[in-house]
């Protein structure tokens, strides 16, 4: 295998450009000593994660308990739940987002309905992050070299990362179950659901063990695994809303979860088997790859670059574009697929109108077109949240440049701080607008029909109307970077809060003043409504003001890691 191996981080320089890799140490792949040191590494990993993992699990627990308590409170009677199942539970938008509403009539089914997506995203992401952090994340900067040079076997870091991630998921089982039982849901089904949810986390633990072997960068390893999570969601959403392709559900760990039906009279216990099989298969693949490659190398060997910079790479904007373009490309593909998929789902909505009850409800709501429009509006509001994730991620990269001391050499040239920051902000904001354009365009194409042009126009408008609310998150991130750099990751926390307000606001019957805290509450419904531009203008102004405050702060503060 030809691959470039990271030269030792310390020690004498090499005379010529880096030498060819030394052959991997002759230790054989399978021996027991390949796992030596795993215990120490597990303890080290637990120590390093002692804040991050409890926070993720704490959020999951809070969501569960809030959900179950409010359901008990607000939908205590079976009649009220049935009514909800007939209205909100029957729309394709909510089914796409949360899963089928088969068991929404039960306390447990309603409490966990919205947990299907939120819970799998939380457990899936934390599993991915934990595994990557202790494998590729340590390998990339050369830290693992230090460890492997001591007494630690070839598979010790991978095993430690996997064990900690599995442990995280196992701990989630009693948390979720107790959270549900707090809302008077029976203990058996509660533990059943919690187990099925944790098994989804298991699958993504296995997946991350594999993706950590593929690329040299931990960012890319996380990205690939998170993209698979998104695809798993899409497969389930498509399968659940379009009867002709409902088999797509069976390909997705999220599909296994919703079809497990913990709160049905007869849960499908055998659906606990596929996640375990998937975990084992992914782990085998990951370990095989880990045993075959050199430390530091990916599956794809690093290629040589250009000997000189192109004309594009001549200033801060060129640099920012270069740094963001890979991520933006990944997101672009994701948005195009998401748009096309959700657009085409809207064509299958006729299925929903088939039953008499739903038809009556549709009439009350304003007909078939209104149903489609409300579904598409819901989809666009979802896109706003995802674009906000993109914005926060790409703006935090600016802070990442600073803490990695890569901003320093740029700021030691005539490039001022504002121009440096502007380069990242511009690329991020234009990138966000571009993603929404893709979303609208592909949703329109997916919707199709005789008047594609008209549909595209309408959906482009609806997509771009989501930008101002997402930009408020960009403003918040910039303000944090400028004023409280050490706390800039709090932008994720605020985004999570806004998402929770939007997702659980109706279930918790939150006060309108609380809902108004989230910028996403203020985005008007563009499709099938009369649009007022005022909220969009106000949101944009808030975003600009926050960004301006942040940039002023950045000009006045110290540049550096702390």
């Amino acid at each position: 295998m030809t691959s470039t191996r990271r030269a030792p981080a310390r020690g004498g320089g090499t005379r010529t450009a880096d030498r060819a890799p030394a052959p991997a140490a002759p230790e054989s792949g399978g021996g027991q000593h390949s796992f030596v040191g795993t215990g120490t590494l597990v303890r080290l990993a637990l120590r390093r994660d002692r804040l991050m993992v409890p926070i993720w699990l704490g959020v999951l627990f809070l969501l569960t308990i809030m959900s179950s308590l409010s359901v008990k409170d607000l939908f205590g009677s079976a009649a009220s739940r049935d009514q909800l199942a007939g209205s909100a539970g029957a729309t394709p938008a909510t089914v796409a987002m949360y899963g089928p509403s088969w068991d929404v009539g039960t306390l447990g089914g309603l409490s966990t309905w919205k947990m299907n997506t939120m819970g799998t995203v939380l457990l899936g992401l934390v599993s991915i992050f934990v595994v990557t952090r202790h494998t590729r994340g340590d390998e990339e900067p050369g830290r693992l070299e230090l460890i492997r040079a001591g007494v630690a076997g070839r598979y010790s870091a991978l095993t430690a990362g996997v064990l900690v991630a599995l442990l995280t998921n196992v701990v989630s089982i009693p948390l979720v179950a107790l959270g549900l039982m707090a809302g008077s849901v029976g203990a058996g089904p509660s533990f059943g659901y919690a187990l099925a949810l944790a098994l989804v986390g298991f699958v993504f633990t296995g997946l991350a063990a594999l993706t950590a072997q593929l690329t040299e960068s931990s960012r890319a390893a996380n990205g690939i695994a998170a993209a698979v999570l998104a695809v798993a969601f899409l497969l389930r959403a498509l399968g659940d809303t379009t009867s002709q392709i409902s088999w797509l559900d069976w390909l997705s760990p999220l599909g296994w979860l919703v079809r497990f039906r913990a709160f049905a009279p007869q849960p499908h216990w055998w659906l606990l088997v596929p996640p375990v099989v998937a975990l084992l298969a992914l782990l085998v693949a990951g370990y095989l790859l880990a045993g075959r490659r050199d430390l530091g190398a990916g599956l794809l060997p690093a290629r040589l670059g250009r000997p000189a910079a192109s004309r594009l790479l001549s200033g801060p904007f060129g640099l920012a574009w270069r740094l963001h373009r890979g991520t933006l490309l990944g997101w672009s593909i994701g948005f195009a697929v998401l748009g096309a998929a959700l657009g085409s789902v809207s064509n299958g909505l006729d299925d929903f109108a088939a039953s008499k009850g739903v038809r009556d409800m549709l009439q009350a709501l304003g007909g078939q077109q209104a149903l489609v429009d409300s579904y598409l509006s819901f989809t666009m509001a979802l896109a706003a949240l995802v674009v906000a994730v993109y914005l926060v991620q790409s703006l935090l990269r600016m802070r990442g440049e600073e803490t990695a001391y890569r901003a320093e050499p740029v700021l030691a040239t005539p490039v001022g701080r504002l121009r440096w920051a502007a380069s990242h902000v511009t690329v991020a904001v234009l990138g966000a607008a571009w993603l929404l354009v893709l979303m609208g365009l592909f949703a329109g194409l997916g919707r199709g029909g005789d008047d594609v042009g008209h549909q595209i126009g309408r959906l482009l408008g609806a997509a771009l109307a989501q930008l101002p609310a997402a930009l408020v998150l960009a403003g918040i991130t910039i303000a944090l970077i400028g004023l409280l750099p050490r706390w800039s990751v709090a932008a994720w926390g605020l985004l999570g809060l806004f998402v929770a307000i939007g997702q659980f606001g109706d279930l918790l019957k939150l006060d309108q003043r609380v809902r108004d805290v989230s910028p996403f509450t203020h985005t008007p419904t563009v499709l099938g409504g009369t649009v007022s531009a005022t909220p969009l203008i106000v949101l944009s102004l808030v975003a600009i003001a926050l960004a301006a405050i942040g940039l002023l702060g950045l000009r006045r503060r110290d540049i550096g890691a702390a």
Partner: protein
Amino acid sequence: MDNAISATGLVKQFGRTRALDGLDLHVATGEVHGFLGPNGAGKSTTIRVLLGLLRADEGTATLLSGDPWRDATTLHRRLAYVPGDVNLWPTLSGGEVIDLLGRLRGGLDPVRRKDLLDRFDLDPRKKARTYSKGNRQKVALVAALASDCELLILDEPTSGLDPLMEQVFADCIQAERKSGRTVLLSSHILSEVEALCDRVSIIRAGRTVETGTLAELRHLTRTSVTAELAGPGDGVAAIPGVYDLVAEGNRLTCEVDTVKLDELLRHLTSVGVRSLTSQPPTLEELFLRHYEQDEPAVTA
């Protein structure tokens, strides 16, 4: 204008760590100035203040007759910087980084770029992620040396370079000196400083403890003396500037500040000298003295 860099009484506090504690630094235009001090003494912090990346809590700094904080962008046209920890964008090749940094500074000389790449034996096509530490250092050095500027600020530029490359670097700095550029060179390597620098400043715990030409500093070192006397050497201990005195009968050894050597010898000859050995002062000793007495940075 005679000072390229002039800093007085710089103070910089990081939380409870006082990284700079009244630091002075004066670098004359056209000189190569060595900047020494033990780990954590505040060298990199001083350089970051001079680059306008950090704002000093107290004290004044002038860089190329401008204010390093207020006039940062205009001043940066006239200088090049090699950071202590060279961190490069992992997906860019070395050549791309060199060109980018050069262009940000207003362009670099392609002939010089090529010449430096050859001399440093650096392959510009490799992705920064795959460079070794020494090679990352070379990327930053080539980028700085290939651009045309008045002032070079180099923070431990030879860390990670092998001895051959250190020599190439030394040759480059000699050439820079001849062409009249000013260089601030932070370093831990004494031979490098002796070979290249006109003047040096030594700092410790955020304060300047010595500054001057190498000859002046040599003067500040101590000579060690061993003497066999005609009688007991009473009174030697009372001479100021004598340290570590050990007297056994008529034999004594001690250390003496080089400026007080004269006085000590006068006293010894008044007793009567049978034999005398003295060890000439070395800079090493001076540096070690400052390095050894190092205390952790003052915490408030």
